[in-house]
């Protein structure tokens, strides 16, 4: 034990995580992912998925509506920019709190049911929020155009501290450091590390154990003197706050908010990230989020010309046929690839990429003459 109250192996995991995240720009350079816009997305969606995993990975409650909190976080952050200050700190604090407040309401109602009914309720709420953002709430959300900054915004705190951005629309800035590019990434990365640490502490705490008990046997919990619903609600609200924070950070790195962030496809994406990486594991959701954002970036960048070039070694008729078939899976159609990838993972690696890593580790152990490493790695807790 140490000042961080972590076990030795957790401490090592945390240190490796910090090093990997901070050196992200260097490590990911060879993969063509070392540029700030994408790195920011990795960090932000990593936070989103870490939070989602506290709900889904620990308690087993599968929410299909978490994008609602992401969207709420973004709107809140942009409003904070407009009304108070372009400093990202108030923006993310309010985004987290408002995300939490929304999740108290939606969670309280949705958790009256479990299983598929819970999922449907959360989905319904998210779609409702999405539609409201486009209709009656347009004074707050600015409807289809999306909520943007304006020169005429009051920015009360900035004014009070004598900060004048002049005639240009300002980006968010942390005491003079603009939250775009690498500074923007390092701001998000710091929060990712903090969120990862919080999640680690929750996983190892008595509270985390109770959340896993919720997933395992609610009946036994009740007859053991534990009230299951507040535990599930607490997990729901924590994950809602993480989502609100992630939404706030999206607005920090790019100060606008639109309702499409709340659409059900965005809710589904975080489910995929968590399952792809390995739900219920500490690192899995971050890896899943990174993997999906990375492939999204690659596949959606393809277009007809690039495809034709790629198949230029083929005879012309075949070249066009291959290109048109492949184009189904790239660009706008990249979700088809995502779906196929997801199916492969669920069928062959139900524990996600983390299970894949464990299996590889086990295989290497066996080849290296290490007796029954594989059976050990199977019974090891899922981290």
């Amino acid at each position, binding site marked *: 034990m140490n000042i961080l109250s972590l076990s030795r192996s957790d401490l090592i995991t945390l240190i490796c995580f910090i090093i990997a995240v901070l050196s992200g720009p260097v490590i990911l350079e060879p993969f063509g992912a070392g540029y700030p816009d994408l790195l920011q997305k990795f960090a932000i969606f990593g936070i989103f998925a870490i939070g989602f995993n506290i709900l889904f990975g620990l308690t087993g409650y599968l929410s299909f509506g978490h994008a609602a909190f992401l969207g709420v976080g973004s709107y809140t952050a942009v409003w904070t920019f407009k009304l108070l200050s372009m400093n990202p700190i108030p923006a993310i604090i309010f985004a987290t709190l408002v995300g939490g407040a929304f999740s108290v309401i939606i969670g309280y109602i949705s958790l009256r049911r479990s299983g598929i009914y819970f999922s449907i309720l959360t989905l319904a709420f998210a779609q409702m929020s999405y539609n409201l953002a486009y209709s009656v709430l347009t004074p707050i959300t600015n409807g289809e155009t999306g909520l943007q900054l304006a020169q005429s915004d009051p920015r009360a705190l900035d004014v009070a501290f004598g900060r004048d951005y002049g005639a240009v629309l300002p980006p968010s800035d942390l005491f003079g450091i603009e939250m775009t590019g690498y500074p923007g990434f390092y701001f998000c990365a710091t929060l990712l590390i903090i969120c990862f640490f919080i999640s680690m502490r929750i996983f190892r*705490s008595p509270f985390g*154990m109770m959340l896993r008990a919720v997933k395992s046997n609610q009946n036994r919990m009740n*007859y053991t003197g534990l009230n299951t619903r507040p535990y599930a609600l607490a997990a729901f609200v924590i994950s809602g706050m993480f989502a609100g924070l992630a939404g706030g950070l999206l607005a920090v790195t790019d100060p606008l908010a639109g309702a499409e962030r709340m659409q059900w496809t965005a809710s589904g994406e975080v489910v995929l990230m968590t399952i792809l990486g390995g739900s219920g594991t500490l690192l899995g959701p971050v890896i899943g989020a990174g993997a999906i954002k990375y492939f999204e970036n690659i596949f959606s960048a393809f277009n007809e010309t690039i495809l034709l070039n790629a198949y230029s070694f083929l005879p012309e008729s075949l070249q066009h046929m291959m290109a048109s078939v492949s184009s189904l899976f790239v660009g706008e159609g990249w979700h088809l690839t995502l779906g196929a990838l997801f199916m492969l993972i669920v069928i062959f690696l139900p524990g996600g990429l983390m299970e894949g890593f464990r299996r590889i580790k086990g295989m290497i152990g066996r080849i290296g003459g290490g007796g029954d490493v594989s059976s050990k790695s199977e*019974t090891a807790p899922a981290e």
Partner: protein
Amino acid sequence: MGILTVNNVNKRFGGLKALDDVNLDIHEGTVHAIIGPNGAGKSTLLNCFVGKLEPDTGSVVFDGTSLLGIPPHKINQLGVSRVFQTPEIFGDLTLLENVMIPAFAKRDGSFKVNGWSAVANQSEVRDQAMVMLEDVNLASKSKETAGHLSRGDKRRLELAMCLVQKPKLLLLDEPTAGMARADTNNTIDLMKTIASKGVTMVVIEHDMHVVFSLADRISVLAQGHVIAEDIPDKIKGDPRVQEAYLGGAHL
């Protein structure tokens, strides 16, 4: 006055009268067995003690508190623990965690967001749980996942989960049902040890050897009605019991 008093309890399921004017008085520190043919209403009666079912009429009073309308987790917090006919455990968690959870429930109440302290630092609760696992001979498996245990081991684990809470009243529904002979004997020995420590128990049991060697008093339930209640020796010779329970065969 006993620690658990049941007065004129009735329970209907549609047209079926599952409990018919049941009266019971369980005394502190005793083992009270409930026997009766299948479908007599034994499990239904136990369900009325833990908040799983609500009697249509009548009263159930535990330790001065009426149990009617109280949810299961609050009844447990009053000091009632229950072992189910099919073991209810946390199958995805380790044995140690299975026993630590009820210990936390006893210490921290029905809900506490204890999200910042490490389980690894909770040595008091962990030691308590380990001692309990030793008592039921499962200490060597403390790090295994509970779902893979044999039926008998699951039952003993469930007993440890109940006992770690130091319940004032322990309810057991057919604790040896569906168990292999060796497991049955183990479980009986364990229940005897528990009884010798003065834990008040209500046991539903089919095995007559278990009942007569364990119980201080026996109630016989038939078609939802208590047809006899007495000490084991008297119950053995009661012709009504033999009639109802064994179709006239001799005990």
